[in-house]
């Protein structure tokens, strides 16, 4: 089963790259903790998109199902680890909020001197 008109890999590359850069910039420049967090998730998911696209291309290039499967397995693991990361991050934000009533990261400056 093949899709007659397939999207070229370059488009995926550009889309994933754009999402990744948006995520990275957001993580570095935003002040609200939750927004930073969403940006990081965006980065990880752009990677997922890219890997899935590559898995298909690699599978077609080599004609070997197993190499294509490697990429798809990687995506599953990235999803699972991202969920664990999300849980740790949210828990940390809760802990911070309990102590300070804010999650504005610009106000987290106890140790700068």
């Amino acid at each position, binding site marked *: 089963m093949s899709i007659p008109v397939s999207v070229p890999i370059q488009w995926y590359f550009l889309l994933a790259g754009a999402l990744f850069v948006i995520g990275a910039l957001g*993580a570095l420049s935003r002040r609200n903790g939750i927004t930073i967090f969403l940006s990081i998730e965006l980065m990880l998911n752009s*990677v997922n998109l890219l890997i899935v696209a590559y898995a298909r291309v*690699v599978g077609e290039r080599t004609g070997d199902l197993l190499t294509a499967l490697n990429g798809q397995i990687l995506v599953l*693991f990235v999803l699972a680890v991202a969920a664990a990361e999300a849980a740790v991050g949210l*828990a*940390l934000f809760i802990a911070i909020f309990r102590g300070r009533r804010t999650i504005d990261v610009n106000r987290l400056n106890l140790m700068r001197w």
Partner: protein
Amino acid sequence: MTAIPIRDFLLLAPEIFLAVAGMAMLVAGSYGRDNGGNGHRGCSVCAVAALAMTGGLVFWLQGGREVPEVILSGMFVLDGYAFFWKILLLIAATLTIFLSERFVAEGGYRPGEYYALILFATTGMLLMVSGFNLLSIWISLELMALSSYILAGYFKHQLKSTEAALKYFVLGALSSGILLYGVSLLYGATGTLELAGLSDALSLAVAAGDGQVLVALGWLLLAMGLFFKVAVVPFHVWTPDVYVGAPTPITSFLAIASKAASFAVLVRIFYQGLAFLTPDWQWLTAALATITMIWGNLAALTQKNVKRMLAYSSIAHAGYVLIGVLTATEDGQWAVLFYLAAYTFITAGAFGTVVLLERRAYAGETYEDYAGLARRAPFLAASMMIFLLALTGIPPTGGFVGKIYLFAAAVEAGWVWVAVVGVLTSAISLYYYMGLIVQMYLKDAEDTTPEPLYAPGLLATVGLCAVITVLLGLLPGPLIELAKGSLLPLP
């Protein structure tokens, strides 16, 4: 569908055992009401026992291998290199638990969670140094990192601790995303995630022409993620704040175990996975090593807080270790192993001294708090002096021997200028390490200067580290032989 032989799981028994021990401790520690930190001694004894048994299993099942054995469909490899790091990491984790005694008791939280997280992080490190596939390496790295984030914020009612954890988390997650992006690009260029075939596949992809940019971007991003983990300038910004804010035993854990494991993975990826790109990563590493040594040492000069000074010193030392990495020779490689092994004891001892002087709410960390320590606690002051001399690289300590071999390897491999920068920056570092020694030996204590804590277990740990530091300086032979027997094939 080829089934994985049961034997592979048996060979991985040490890691499995450690993970199960961690889970058992987590569940056992969660029963009953919040007991205000009681039972920490039982927990720490159990944790040390678990680490010791894991060490025994590592010796029994994974030791003495001449030929590397790849297990679990290429996910992990058992070789002398992994064996060396596993033993070192288990020792580092044990030292951390010895240092934790007072903190966990005073913290007032459930001790089971603390020790369970240390065991989980150690499991991640053990798997990491055995990882032979970018997927397994990434997951083990995340296991270590996620446990470390929580440990850094373990004092959840202290604002500094949670702030450190959050900074560590945000930048750690960012770097892990960058690393993963690099992995995905390399996968797209080569179609493989296995380190064994990666280098050849890379050369094919570059030869084919269209994969050049993918390969270049991919390995650069992968390297960036790794450099973040070992805290190399300019990827070091998280280090000072996290080291200051985290509970001191955890700071020590990050500085010795986390750093050693990350270096182990960095060397394995560079030497085995990116062998084809050796000149490229050599230049990148040389540039970063130079900036790291200069910046780390200069920034340490201006610090007034001892923990923060040690954080910058830890950054600078990552630069020294990179010198050995970039040579890509056997001499450079065993110098890295030796240096990180010596550094483990030196740093654990230095942070142990900080633990003994520290009071609740992070008091007792400034240089002034060390004034007149030689008179108040001669043994502690002498130990701290040994660690500081070792960090500077003055004989007769393990730090001196390690630095000499690193620089010698660099000169032999033709990287003279990097070695020169190393020597010059070591001279700079003399100034701030000496500042602390002067405080301890020549200044008088004020009335407000805190008294060091009397904790026999902690004192014994610090003393042990001091003895080993000196022994490694006087008799480095056995450890050098051990390191020489644990090398990876050269790229």
